[in-house]
């Protein structure tokens, strides 16, 4: 029957399929592309991948756990008061168009980012003004911060250095060349974009930059062409991998697809612990969440083990607090909360006795496109229902939720999201999530307020010694967990389906292992 059908189909379509891509030294990458290509406008996980491959920064994160590696800069100095930073550039670096990369380009890049005020600028804006970035000489650039800010160095990989002359030549109405750069590239990275074949969110062809400053000695057979060709739908993405249409999927394979890929020939699943924590936020300013006992009740009503082991098949790591477990600053003895209906009931009873209004129906907002937000919300709904607390699931989108987080009145009772690695410092998580100065941003949407925690987080920000900072973060961590500000669930393991032909892949939480310069393809 199968042969007959095959014969009929073959006759109908005259001949068999063409190869999906040339079998040469060409990689087809099936992960998402950023919406626009300007690294000073868009900053998300897909952009991290584009930036890592086509641009260079002063420093770069490498390895796991990530280490700050001097990249365009060969060294830096910082003044005793922690406010003046100078970076010395390597000599002889060129952009893709062959023009030299100098301190002028570095200063322009930071000024452009800070003036436009989009993308990753939020990490720098509180401490750095555009006019305080200046060139000292052709290979030295200087930053004068408003105040000492220890995570400053950790934010350096966020800023891509762009070709000043190229952007100025494409500037329209003082837009810093932003309209042009949305579909082009002006970097010096290991790969260069072919703007002629670029189709937004559909295809980006990247060609190896043989003159990249880092050289290619450590990779005997580097990939010459990368065709970034995203696959939108999970099912199609996996089929495309199994069929050989793409060499790699995205890094968020659903658990059911992990088994499917693992059983197939010629492909496997890479599992790398990242730094992306999943959280159910609670609006600490709104009753009944303003009651500590109620927050503890909710924290004990969530089935952590059930979610992690049954739903996610142990493909993530339990993370009991507001810093990823594989980063410094985490007090290892803090176990966090566990599912305990008896304790939950005791805390709920105590909250009720204190007058917390547990009768009203609570809302938990989920992100419609992300299944895990629904699954976790349903588990919590079930856990609280057993205690007589009603919870309603409300479907929403990331754009809506981040906009609602602008004030305590509009922030939902609870919502589910992740905090990814934008820069590798506890400041990226605990610092920006629980310092009350950040209230009004989505990261601080639990509206948690504790003066001691504020003091510790601000002090940690101003100190330069990591050991001193770690003590402060640990203390703040303990207090925040004790206050049950949110429900911290797990730290992500990146699950990426990859072809067995890929060799040399190096994982780092920033960019999720998609730095093509280390990779090669087996024949």
């Amino acid at each position, binding site marked *: 029957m199968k042969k007959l059908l095959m014969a009929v189909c073959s006759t109908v379509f005259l001949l*068999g*399929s063409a190869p999906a891509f040339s079998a040469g030294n060409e990689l087809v990458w099936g992960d998402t592309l950023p919406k626009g290509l300007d690294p000073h406008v868009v900053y998300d996980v897909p952009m991290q991948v584009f930036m890592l491959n086509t641009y260079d920064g002063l420093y770069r994160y490498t390895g796991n756990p990530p280490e700050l590696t001097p990249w365009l800069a060969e060294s830096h100095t910082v003044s005793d008061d922690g406010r003046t930073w100078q970076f010395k550039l390597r000599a002889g670096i060129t952009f893709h168009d062959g023009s030299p990369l100098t301190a002028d380009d570095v200063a322009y890049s930071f000024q452009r980012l800070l003036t436009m005020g989009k993308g*990753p600028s939020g990490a720098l804006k509180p401490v750095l003004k555009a006019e305080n970035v200046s060139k000292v000489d052709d290979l030295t650039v200087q930053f004068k911060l408003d105040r000492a800010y220890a995570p400053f160095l950790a934010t350096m990989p966020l800023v891509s250095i762009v070709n000043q002359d190229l952007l100025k030549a494409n500037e329209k109405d003082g837009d810093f060349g932003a309209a042009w750069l949305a579909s082009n590239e002006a970097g010096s990275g290991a790969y260069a974009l072919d703007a002629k074949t670029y189709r937004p969110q559909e295809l980006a062809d990247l060609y190896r930059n043989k003159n990249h400053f880092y050289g290619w000695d450590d990779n005997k057979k580097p990939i010459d062409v990368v065709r970034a060709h995203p696959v939108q739908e999970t099912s199609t993405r996996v089929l495309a991998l199994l069929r050989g249409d793409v060499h790699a999927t995205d890094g968020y394979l659903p658990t059911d697809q992990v088994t499917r890929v693992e059983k197939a020939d010629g492909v496997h699943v890479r599992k790398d612990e990242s730094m992306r924590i999943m959280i159910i936020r609670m609006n600490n300013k709104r009753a009944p969440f303003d009651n500590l006992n109620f927050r503890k009740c909710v924290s004990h009503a969530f089935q952590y083990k059930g979610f992690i082991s049954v739903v996610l098949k142990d493909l993530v790591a339990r993370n009991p607090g507001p810093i990823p477990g594989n980063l410094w600053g985490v007090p290892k003895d803090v176990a966090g909360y566990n599912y305990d209906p008896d304790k939950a009931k005791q805390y709920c009873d105590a909250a009720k006795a204190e007058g917390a209004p547990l009768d009203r129906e609570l809302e938990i907002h989920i992100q419609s496109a992300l299944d895990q937000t629904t699954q976790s919300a349903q588990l919590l709904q079930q856990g609280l229902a057993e205690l007589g607390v009603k919870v309603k699931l409300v479907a929403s989108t990331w754009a809506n939720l981040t906009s609602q987080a602008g004030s305590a009145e509009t922030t939902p009772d609870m919502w589910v999201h992740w905090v990814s690695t934008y820069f590798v410092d506890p400041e990226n998580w605990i610092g920006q999530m629980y310092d009350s100065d950040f209230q009004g941003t989505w990261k601080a949407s639990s509206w948690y307020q504790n003066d001691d925690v504020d003091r510790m987080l601000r002090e940690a920000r101003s100190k330069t010694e990591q050991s001193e900072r770690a003590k402060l973060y640990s203390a703040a961590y303990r207090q925040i967990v004790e206050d049950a500000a949110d429900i911290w669930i797990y730290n992500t393991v990146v699950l990426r389906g990859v072809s067995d032909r890929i060799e040399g892949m190096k994982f780092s939480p920033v960019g999720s292992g998609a730095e093509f310069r280390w990779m090669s393809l087996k024949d």
Partner: protein
Amino acid sequence: MLLFVARRLLLILPILLGLLLLTFLMLRFGGGDPAAALAGDNATPEQIAQIREDLGLNQPIIVQFWDYLKDAVRGDFGVSAYSNRSVGLDIAQKLPATLELTFAALMIATVLGIFFGTLAGVYRNSVFDYLVRVISVTGLATASFWFAIMLQLVFAMEFDILPLRGRLPTGMEAPGTITGLYLIDALLHGRLDAFWEAFRHLVLPAVTISLGGLATIARFTRSAVIASMQSEFATYEQAVGYPRRRVVFPYVLRNSLVTPVTQVGLLFGAFVSNAVAVEAVFDWPGLGSYLVEAIFTSDYQAVLAVTLVIGAIYGVVNILVDLTHGLLDTRVAERM
């Protein structure tokens, strides 16, 4: 006839205005504002406020709508808040893909639907008629998302005779843009390799989208053919000895086509909405996927522009359907 077309085109304008206003209000009152998401993941509240002001989101709603309308009338759909690219340019790149897919599906549904519907009507209560009825009910009940995956599993994975996704193989250069429809552009450039690949890539998504429409058209055609076959003129023609084939094709069929052709106009709207899911499964880089992404990110400019464009195309397709009525029935043509 020209007056009719001009009148109908003018009538589209208030419809589009209403559509735009409705979409604008739904987005503004139900969708939040994109400033926070746009400001990036480490943004300060001041930055978010600044972006809100830059985008004009602090203005009264009526002022925002008026500003948008003024620009849209000039053909300026603004810039995507996220990508900084011109929304008009994005649509110009993505619309041909959706049109190519939708028209291919419409063609499959119309040709096969009328063919099977006519045969089922002529051979009423035969095995063939029952078969068409079963298939058409199944076609209407089948979720296109599921059907798409089934087609992929059979034709791309199991037998490997059709591609899994996309409009062309990865790495194949697209034919130069003239219409944006790859089949036509490939022919115009003499690129037979690209034509063949574009055709192969089109088959599965077009068949998926056409399924529901094919069933609808087959059912309407069947009913209309049965009614015509029972009418006096058909009985008379058969009585005077015309062969059945001659009765059916020039006379019965022509009288039966008005209803299914009306369906074609209505189906176009259904096909475009169906394309949202089907484009995602087959990675078809059209307006459907673009719209979904824009909705999820509250990219207002993009959502409004796509709504407007789809509304305008829907209006034009329905004018064409009315004109086809005129060709099929001279009485209708006289009233135009």
